[in-house]
């Protein structure tokens, strides 16, 4: 076994490794969107934020040699895009779904524009912690080479869960999401709460993007993200706006997304593209199962335009 010839075990191992590796962007985007949506606004533009985050992280890491500065830059870029979204949405009669679509196109376009010179060079990548040191099997070691960002995300989920439940900030965000009037009556500016929530969401989504370019797949190109951002936004809906459920759902998605490459590695190449579409099909199926036309979803923020 030590020679790495483990036959069909490759597939479940690769799926497990993928669940850990591929899930990170899903996790960050969905946690970010969770904050934004809990405040009563939906940001469909996180797909664009993800790509912009990936590009700026790669660029800064390449220029400074420090991948962690890249991660920070990605977060700040995301927060800026979030501020843009919130700023436009705070104008009267502007639809947040449409603004999200526009920022999705703008973010992707801007990232392709600015990222053109970054396709060739190689930037410093994020380090990984080797949790598989005990094993002789290379596939196990590969599956357990875990990036710090993933661990951060895993820690962040329960913190957010706790923060929504018990902190003053969590209460404010939930109030803005459940009843803008109530928040206003309490003397808070709903627009300011949503601005901060959208910026926080953008920050996390940007970090999710930095993972794409700095760890896995670990390079910058225009095909880097194809719909992970929007899948993560959908994921929040069936995770019922619960950060802990976002974590489990992201893991499931990572596993689904890793299925295609895993099967390819054991020689099953026929349905490669269909297996790559697995996360999208899975999202649709789960939405079909969990949504219902008769009632609004349990746990849905009442101010959210997408569930009304």
């Amino acid at each position: 076994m030590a020679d790495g010839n483990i036959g069909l075990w490759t597939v479940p191992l690769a799926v497990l490794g993928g669940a850990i590796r591929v899930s990170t962007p899903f996790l960050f985007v969905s946690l970010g969107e969770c904050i934004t949506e809990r405040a009563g606004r939906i940001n469909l533009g996180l797909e664009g934020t993800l790509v912009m985050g990936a590009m700026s992280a790669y660029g800064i890491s390449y220029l400074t040699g420090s991948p962690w500065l890249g991660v920070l830059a990605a977060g700040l870029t995301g927060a800026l895009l979030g501020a843009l979204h919130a700023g436009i949405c705070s104008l009267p009669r502007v639809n947040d779904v449409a603004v999200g679509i526009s920022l999705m196109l703008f973010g992707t376009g801007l990232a392709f524009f600015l990222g053109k010179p970054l396709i060739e060079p190689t930037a410093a990548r994020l380090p990984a912690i080797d949790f598989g040191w005990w094993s002789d099997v290379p596939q196990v070691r590969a599956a357990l080479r875990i990036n710090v960002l993933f661990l951060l995300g895993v820690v962040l989920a329960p913190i957010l869960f706790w923060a929504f439940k018990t902190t003053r900030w969590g209460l404010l965000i939930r109030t803005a999401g459940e009843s803008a009037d109530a928040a206003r009556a309490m003397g808070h500016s709903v627009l300011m709460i949503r601005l901060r929530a959208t910026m926080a969401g953008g920050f996390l989504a940007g970090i999710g993007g930095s993972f794409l370019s700095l760890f896995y797949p670990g390079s910058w190109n225009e095909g880097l993200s194809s719909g992970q951002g929007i899948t993560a936004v959908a994921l929040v809906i069936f995770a019922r706006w619960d950060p802990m459920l976002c974590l489990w759902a992201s893991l499931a998605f990572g596993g689904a997304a890793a299925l295609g490459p895993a099967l390819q590695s054991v020689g099953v190449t026929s349905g490669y593209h269909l297996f790559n579409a697995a996360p999208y099909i899975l999202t649709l199926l789960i939405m079909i199962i969990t949504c219902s036309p008769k009632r609004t979803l349990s746990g849905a923020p009442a101010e959210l335009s997408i569930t009304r």
Partner: protein
Amino acid sequence: MTTEAADPVDAAAIAPAADAGFLQRWGTEIEYILIPGAALVAALVLFGIFVALFGKNPLDLYWYMYYGAFGTWFSWQNTLTRAAPLILTALCTALPAQLGMVIIGGEGALLIGALAATSAALALQGMPPLVVQIAMVVAGMAGGGLWILLSGALRQYRGVNETISSLLLVYIALAILNHLVEGVMRDPASLNKPSTREIGAANMIGSIPGTDVHWGLVFGLIVTVAAYVLIYHTTFGFAARVAGGNIRAAKIVGLSVGRLILTACFLAGACAGLAGMVEVAAVQGRTNANLAVGYGFTGILVAFLARQNPLAIIPVAILLGGINASGGLLQRRLGLPDASVLVLQGIIFISVLASDALYGRIGFLKGKS
């Protein structure tokens, strides 16, 4: 108002009143042209500043954009050729929008329509070209229609948000296309770029006589006028707009909202599917990944810029087609990356949406009804 106009001083004094009458009648229309127009100009200025940051002269930029889009007969033809699919994919967003739905999956319906049309053509090889072309139109529209119908049905029967589902279906459509094009439908002769077999030169729909613009533009114009008549001059359109305005009221007066949603989604998808058919039968001659160049996504912008009005879609699609067409020139002459067109589109989109806040707030237009 007219009888007292004998005294020239009085006439000058009452002139604003006459203006107010004019504004009362046309104020809304003026707003619908003025505000998106101003948003467009603002977007162009912002984009000019953006390229100036990269050391390019904005005036050169505007000149090349104009020249590449509308400067010569050649660029006009290029523009119109690109406008054709945009008109059709914009309808994919504009038709469901009458019901208050936001469908952004035109790209997926375009790809499925192209696949269906190609399959029809390949299955009917040897038949008279007209038969093949009609079959391609029917297959393309049916394929695209069913694809968006899926989003509508999910919304109607399962309460799944149609914006997200239609976008997810884009990625699924792309996966199906790649799967088929690299699998059972692959032409063994296509080595570098996996493609289906060609539909055959005889089955191509060709150009409008005297031009290089293909017949797809005419398809687009006909469908747009049909969509306009459907929305504004039929009971179906009226019912759809009632349901879009107030879904509860529509249910109370006994409208079958479900059927409206499904029909609108099918027709919407059929338009985008026709765009796919046109791209196959007039441009590519076969199906491959080249079809996914973003016509579906630009179509969303066209629909929003046209405020979901089919007739307004035509000039807006020509404008956006022109911007697309000038991309090549910007790349060659100014050394801007090809994505600069995407950036400009994004800025236009954002600026147009932000301008929604201006309706009913412009000082001199406040006299309108």
